[in-house]
């Protein structure tokens, strides 16, 4: 149970490759913070600096108000789950979980109690005497979690812990980690490149790109009010559609298509050229007074939903419609957009202006 303070954290490799630049973040006790971004955005580097596995080039790291820059990993009282599990392959599941406690000189009874407790929570009781090689991917993941939770550490660090699991298991382990956090309430930093994990797990998420913070906020804030084109396009699946268009007094022009929009829903004091962002679920079929007609190019059935690909003013987009409506490629559809959900970005700075 601890708070963390990351101040101007910077990592430079080989004198001039900047991996992380001036990273500032206050993490409150019991928070579940997710760092999310494309690979190479520096998110794992920050985590490893917090863990003490990478030196901090500049800046300061505080855990519970104590400066940690020069404290070695073993004395930071953190627990970490690694991307490829990093289990001790020559030890049994029991020994894997007990190792950290032994190193911290716990009594044998205490170790036994804690390991058994963690094994019970994670359903590992039947496997305590197996070696990691004899476990499935999901079970190994659980052992890695178990090794972290027995320690009762101040901070949990998780480095893409679900990336080597298949889609089904990932969904299951996601909820297990969430319920583990709501039970233990340990301050957690979770790193992932998967926006779905970030959205579903975080109390707050930090979107990173090129070693710099793009946005910090709750999943809802980041989804509904992204600060720029990068965040808007990165968060959400399928990705947000972007159209380049121009503003008029009473609406928008996208290619040769004119869309009338009430003045209150348009940005003020903006240059004429603009990027318009529309999420696939904010477009719908409307026979009565559609905004535009378009010819469907491709149809993807996803079970409950169907994704359709088409064009608006010659710019391609994806829209999500219920699978109950049967649609064939080549068909022409009348479509509208929920006007109050449209986002507007400056075409130069790519920042959101409305």
């Amino acid at each position, binding site marked *: 149970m601890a708070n963390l303070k990351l101040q101007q954290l910077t990592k430079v490799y080989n004198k001039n490759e900047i991996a992380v630049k001036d990273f500032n973040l206050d993490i409150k006790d019991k928070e579940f913070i997710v760092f999310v971004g494309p690979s190479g955005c520096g998110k794992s580097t920050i985590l490893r600096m917090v*863990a*003490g596995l990478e030196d901090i080039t500049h800046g300061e790291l505080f855990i519970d108000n104590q400066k940690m820059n020069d404290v070695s990993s*073993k*004395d930071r009282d953190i627990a970490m789950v690694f991307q490829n599990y990093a289990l*001790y392959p020559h030890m049994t599941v029991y020994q894997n979980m007990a*190792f950290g406690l032994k*190193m911290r000189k716990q009594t044998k009874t205490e170790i036994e109690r804690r390991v058994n407790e963690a094994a019970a929570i994670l359903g590992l009781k039947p496997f305590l005497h197996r070696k990691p090689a004899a476990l499935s991917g999901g079970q190994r993941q659980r052992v890695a979690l178990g090794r972290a939770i027995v*320690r009762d550490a101040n901070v949990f660090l998780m480095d893409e812990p679900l990336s080597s699991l298949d889609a089904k298991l990932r969904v299951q382990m996601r909820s297990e980690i969430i319920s583990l956090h709501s039970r233990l309430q340990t301050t957690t930093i979770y790193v992932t490149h998967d926006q779905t994990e970030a959205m579903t797990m975080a109390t707050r998420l930090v979107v990173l790109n090129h070693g710099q913070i793009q946005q910090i906020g709750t999943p809802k804030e980041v989804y509904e009010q992204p600060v720029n084109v990068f965040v808007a396009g990165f968060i959400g699946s399928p990705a947000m559609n972007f159209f380049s268009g121009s503003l008029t007094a009473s609406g928008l022009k996208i290619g040769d298509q004119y869309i009338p929009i009430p003045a209150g829903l348009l940005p003020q004091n903006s240059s004429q050229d603009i990027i318009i962002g529309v999420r696939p679920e904010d477009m719908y079929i409307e026979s009565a007074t559609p905004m535009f007609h378009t010819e469907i190019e491709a149809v993807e059935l996803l079970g409950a939903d169907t994704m359709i690909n088409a064009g608006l003013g010659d710019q391609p987009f994806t829209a999500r419609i219920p699978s109950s409506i049967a649609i064939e490629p080549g068909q022409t559809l009348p479509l509208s957009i929920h006007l109050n959900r449209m986002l507007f970005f400056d075409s130069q700075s790519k920042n959101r202006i409305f």
Partner: protein
Amino acid sequence: MDSLLNSIFSEAFLSPIWVSLKIAIIAGIIVILIGTVAARFFARKQFRGKAVIETLLMLPMVLPPTVVGFFLIVIFGKNSWAGQAITWLFDRPIIFTWWAAVIAAIVVAFPLMYQSAKSGFLAMDRDIENAARVDGASEWKIFFFISIPLASKALISGSILSFARALGEFGATLMFAGNIPGETQTLPIAIYIAIDSGNMVMAWLWVIAIVTLSFLMLLAVRVKE
């Protein structure tokens, strides 16, 4: 048949075997210890001049044994600094002694242990060591409880190969330690002398002894793979 049995249990037959085993075991232990520590050090640290130092350490692997012998004579010879220090300390030069054979065996066996151990340490997932670090283990505990067990296959095959190399050393030993029966006359030297003097029976017996030993060791390496 009786004479064969007599040969087998004769002092003349057994003496080179004992000399060889004693030298190889002592050299082997030293090589395994130093080789493991050095390999782990070089596998984890980066610094300037590392490539040159490693090349020097590996050199005895590609140098002819007689060149190794030559350098040992030059380094530990009567006129060298090291040779005079040893003479002053032990009241006799090291050349043509049992210890000279051990030194020759160490020098030629070291690169094999070093190379094998280093590739073992490099092949490891570094994050397993990092996990132990986060789990509160000191660097020495990581070395003993994590790195060594994880590299154990490479360490064992390196140990076997370097022991075999120490056991089989001929050229450098002959030049630096000489051919003194009961002290520096190892199996390979004894076989050479036996052939040279036409004693085929003894040669066969020694060859069978050493081949059996080598074959078993090689099989052990292969099974470990």
